[in-house]
């Protein structure tokens, strides 16, 4: 099977189908029925929690007990947060943060 020309196609198909099933699951469960009150509430307040978890997820490879102790990540993240708070320009925040990070990892 793994030597067949069909194998990579099958792998891509399986990966796509599982990903689609996961994305479609909430829509299949709540389909066209009226939404329960609790789901309504979660739809509003789950996103800020998920987004915060995604930031942690992005930084999960960072080691704070080994050199350079996550210093590039910490400095670049603070820069992004401060810029976004005072300038409210997402392009500026993202570009400045990324450039700052790319420079820092070459210095440390």
């Amino acid at each position, binding site marked *: 099977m793994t*030597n067949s020309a069909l*194998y*990579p*196609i*099958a*792998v*891509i*198909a*399986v*990966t*796509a189908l*599982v*990903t689609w099933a*996961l*994305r*479609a*699951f*909430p*829509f299949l469960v709540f389909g*066209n029925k009226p*939404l329960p009150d*609790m789901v309504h*509430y*979660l*739809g*509003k*307040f*789950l*996103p*800020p*929690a*998920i*987004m*915060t*978890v*995604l*930031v*942690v*997820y*992005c*930084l*999960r*490879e960072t080691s704070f007990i080994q050199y350079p102790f996550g210093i590039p*990540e910490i400095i*670049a*993240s603070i820069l*992004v*947060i401060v810029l*976004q*708070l005072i300038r409210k320009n*997402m*392009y500026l*925040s*993202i*570009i400045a*943060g*990324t450039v700052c*990070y*790319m420079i820092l*990892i070459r210095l440390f």
Partner: protein
Amino acid sequence: MREFKFAIKNTIPIFFTYLFIGIAFGILMSDAGYGVLMSTASALFIFAGSMQIVMVPMMTSGASLISIAVMTFFINARHLFYGIGFIEQFRTMGWKRPYMILTLTDETYSLLCSVQYDPGLDKSRAAFLIAFLDHMYWVFGCFLGSCAGQFLNFDMEGIGFSATAFFLVVVVNQWRQHCSKLPFGVAIVCSAVFLLLLGRDYFIIPTLIACLVSLMLLRRPIEAKEVSDDE
């Protein structure tokens, strides 16, 4: 046309992230011996960055389809939580609905959660164009990486931080939009607990479940705080 401009303006940060991560995937695929067709098909149909990147070494080592399905489930299970906020919005989108559901990536989801539509804009059209443009950026990046990867030999290490920066920006924007800061606190506490308990490879799903349960329990204080925001 106004919706298209609006979508372009809002997806520019994702353009850079997807382009560079897509190129990285394309290079990985061509190094592993898979051509432009396979890279582009993966981008078009899977459209999930971290899983596509994990898929390549599994494919070269000839992993069974079952183990690929299980791996996909664990890496992408966070997507189970994304639809909850969009059930009603997508209901009114007609033929665009299945496309919106199947292309709900981390980045598209975050953008759709935090975007402020200009008055007079066709919301459904703008949301569709945001999802569509993100998808096309990804396909373009993967395509470019697989056919021209060997010519793009500049040092891109660290460009992946643009994804982190993007999510940070979204969190800051959400922080401004919500009166109750409890959801953020809950997320930080849950992430910290499960990171320490389970480590970086397994923490995300228990963390998301714990956030879901905690938010259900904290419904009263959170909604009480937000009342003034609704009216």
